[in-house]
C-alpha cells in the first residue's frame, strides 16, 4: 500500500471517495509520522491525537450517508497555526503569557474547515505572537527545516510550513502580517497563499497588526491551497473587516498564462540577494514567458521604504493589541501585592525579547510628541506604497519576484541582530501594506538543496489569478513534488 502521508490533499480526497482507505487510516498515518519524526522538526506545539481520531471516525461514519459526500474536506487531516483558536485545544501563540490558555471558541477560518469535514491534527509552532521570520522567537523552541534540520523553516508560520513539507499533513493554516505565510512556504519548498486583506475572517485570530493581519493557507500544490482558500474565504458577520466579496470556485481548466502581462519589479532584484535566488526566480519567470506570458520590467519606486513603514505600523498596532495581556483574564499571573505590580511583573517576565522590543517601539512611536514624526509619517508613506501597486496593476495583471532574499538560514544566524532578521521580509511586506494577495511556489533548489520561492503578487481579491498561474507553473515543473528525506 502507498504511504498515505505522501499523498496531496486532492489525492487523499480521491482515495477516500473511492474507498481505498478511511479517514481513520489517513489520520493515524499522520499521527504516526508526527510521533516518529516530529521530535526532529518540532513543527507542532500541540498534537490533538484523541480529538483527531474521533473526528476521523465521525468523518468515516458521515461518508456512508449522502450528507457526508457533499463535504469537500471530509476526513482530511489539517494543522492550524497556534495563533488561531480551536475550541478546547490550547492556544499559546508561541508565548509564555498564554501558557495554559484553552479558548472557549473557534476561529471562523478553522470552523469553516471543520464544517467542510476537515480533521484538526494539531496546533503548529510560531514565532511569539507571529512576530518573527524563523520561529526562533517561539517561547517553546525553534522548529527545524525538514530540508536541513540545522536551519530555520522561516516564520512566523514556520510550524505550519514544516508540517506540510515534512508530510505530516497535506495542508495547514497560517497567518501573514508581513510575509509569515509566503516566506516559510519559500524556505520549506511548498505553496503558501497570503490572502487579500479582508478576504478571510479574522474572528478567532489573535490580533497582532490589525491593519495588516491576514489568514492564509499552506499546501503542496496550488490546487490544494485553492480548495482551502475557497472554503475559508468570504464575509463573516463576526468580523467587521471581512469583505463582502463573492468567493470564486477556482477553475483550473483552460490556459491561465497565455496573454497575461506579468511585471517584474526592478527594486526586488537588489544587491545582497543570494545569487541562486535571483537565478532560479528569473528562470521561473522565463518559464511563464514560455507559457505565453508577456514579461515587462516595472518599478515599485517606494519599495525601500516598506520595511521602515512596516516597523512602525506593525509594532504600533501590536503595542495596542498586546495591552490585553495583563494577567487578569487569561494566561498566568505573577502575583504581587497590588494591581500595578501584577501588570508590570506579569508582562515583564512572560513576553519574550522580540515581542518586548516591538511593544516598546510601538509604544514609543505612538507616545506624545512622536506620533506625527513616526506613526503619522509611516501612514503617509504607506499611501505611496499602495499607489505604487495601483499604478503597476494598471500596466500588468500580476507581479513576479523572489519571495525571500535568501534560502533557509542557519538557526542562530540572525537571532542577535533584529534588523538582519527584519530584512528577511523585505520582499513580502509591501503586499501587506497595500493589502493585496500573494503566493509563494517552489521554483528550484540552491547548491545546498534548499528550496527557492517564486512570489506572485496580484490585485485585491484576485487570488484566483495567482492560484491559476501557480497551478499552470506546477503543471510544467516538478519542484513542488520533491520531498525532504526525514
Amino acid at each position, binding site marked *: 500500500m502507498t504511504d498515505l502521508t505522501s499523498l496531496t490533499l486532492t489525492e487523499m480526497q480521491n482515495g477516500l471517495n473511492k474507498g481505498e482507505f478511511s479517514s481513520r487510516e489517513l489520520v493515524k498515518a499522520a499521527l504516526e509520522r508526527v510521533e516518529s519524526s516530529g521530535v526532529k522538526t518540532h513543527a507542532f506545539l500541540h498534537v490533538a491525537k484523541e480529538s483527531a481520531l474521533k473526528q476521523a471516525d465521525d468523518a468515516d461514519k458521515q461518508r456512508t450517508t449522502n450528507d457526508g459526500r457533499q463535504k469537500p474536506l471530509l476526513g482530511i487531516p489539517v494543522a492550524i497555526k497556534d495563533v488561531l483558536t480551536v475550541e478546547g485545544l490550547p492556544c499559546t501563540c508561541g508565548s509564555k503569557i498564554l501558557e*495554559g490558555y*484553552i479558548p*472557549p*471558541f473557534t476561529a471562523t477560518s478553522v470552523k469553516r474547515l471543520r464544517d467542510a469535514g476537515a480533521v484538526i491534527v494539531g496546533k503548529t509552532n510560531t514565532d511569539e505572537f507571529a512576530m518573527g521570520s524563523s520561529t526562533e522567537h517561539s517561547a517553546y523552541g525553534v522548529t527545524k527545516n525538514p530540508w536541513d534540520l540545522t536551519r530555520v523553516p522561516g516564520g512566523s508560520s514556520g510550524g505550519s510550513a514544516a508540517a506540510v513539507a515534512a508530510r505530516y499533513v497535506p495542508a495547514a493554516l497560517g497567518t501573514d502580517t508581513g510575509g509569515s505565510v509566503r516566506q516559510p512556504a519559500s524556505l520549506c519548498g511548498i505553496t503558501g497563499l497570503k490572502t*487579500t*486583506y*479582508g478576504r478571510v475572517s479574522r474572528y478567532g485570530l489573535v490580533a497582532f497588526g490589525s*491593519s495588516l493581519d491576514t489568514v492564509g493557507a499552506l499546501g503542496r500544490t496550488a490546487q490544494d491551497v485553492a480548495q482551502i482558500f475557497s472554503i475559508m474565504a468570504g*464575509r463573516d*458577520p463576526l468580523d*467587521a*473587516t471581512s*469583505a*463582502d*466579496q463573492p468567493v470564486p470556485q477556482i477553475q483550473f481548466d483552460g490556459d491561465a498564462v497565455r496573454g497575461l502581462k506579468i511585471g517584474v519589479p526592478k527594486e526586488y532584484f537588489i544587491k545582497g540577494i543570494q545569487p541562486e535566488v535571483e537565478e532560479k526566480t528569473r528562470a521561473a519567470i522565463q518559464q511563464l514567458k514560455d507559457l505565453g506570458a508577456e514579461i515587462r520590467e516595472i518599478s515599485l519606486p517606494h519599495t*525601500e*521604504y516598506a520595511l*521602515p*513603514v512596516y*516597523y*512602525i505600523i506593525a509594532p504600533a498596532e501590536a503595542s495596542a493589541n498586546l*495591552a490585553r495581556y495583563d*494577567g*487578569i*483574564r*487569561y*494566561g498566568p*499571573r505573577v502575583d504581587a501585592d*497590588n*494591581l500595578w505590580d*501584577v*501588570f*508590570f*511583573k506579569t508582562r*515583564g*517576565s512572560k*513576553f519574550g525579547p522580540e515581542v*518586548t*522590543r516591538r*511593544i*516598546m*517601539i510601538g*509604544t*514609543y512611536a505612538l*507616545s506624545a510628541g512622536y506620533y506625527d514624526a*513616526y506613526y*503619522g*509619517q509611516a*501612514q*503617509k*508613506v*504607506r*499611501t*505611496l506604497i499602495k499607489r505604487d501597486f495601483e499604478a503597476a496593476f494598471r500596466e500588468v495583471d500580476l507581479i513576479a519576484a523572489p519571495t525571500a532574499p535568501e534560502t533557509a538560514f542557519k538557526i542562530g544566524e540572525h537571532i542577535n541582530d*533584529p*534588523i538582519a532578521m527584519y530584512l528577511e521580509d523585505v520582499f513580502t511586506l509591501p503586499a*501587506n*501594506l497595500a*493589502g493585496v494577495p500573494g503566493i509563494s511556489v517552489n521554483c528550484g533548489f540552491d547548491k545546498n538543496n534548499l528550496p527557492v520561492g517564486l512570489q506572485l503578487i496580484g490585485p*485585491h481579491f484576485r487570488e484566483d489569478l495567482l492560484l491559476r498561474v501557480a497551478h499552470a507553473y506546477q503543471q510544467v515543473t516538478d519542484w513542488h513534488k520533491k520531498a525532504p528525506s526525514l
Partner: protein
Amino acid sequence: MALTQKEVEHIAKLARLELSAEQMERYREQLSAILDYIAKLRELDTKDVPPTAGGGLTQMTLRADEPRPGLATDELLKNAPEAEDDQFKIPPVFE
C-alpha cells in the same frame, strides 16, 4: 538616534513592562538602532499625501445590532488566574 536610559525607562513604564537594568540597556541599544533605520522615512516629502489607516479596500460592514447568545461566563472564567462569584479577581487597587 540614540535613546537615553531615561527615555527607555519611560517607554517601559508606559508599556507596563518590568525590566532589569541589564535588559533596559540592551533594549536601549537595539531600539536606538531600529529607530535609526526607520528614520529613513523622513527623506520623503509627504506634505500632500493622505494617510492610509486600514488595509482594506472595502468599507467595514457592521452586523445588525440584535441580541444573541454570547460566550458563557463560567467558560470564560475558566482561563482566569483567579475568579470569584462570576467575576475576575484582582489584587487591591487602593491601599
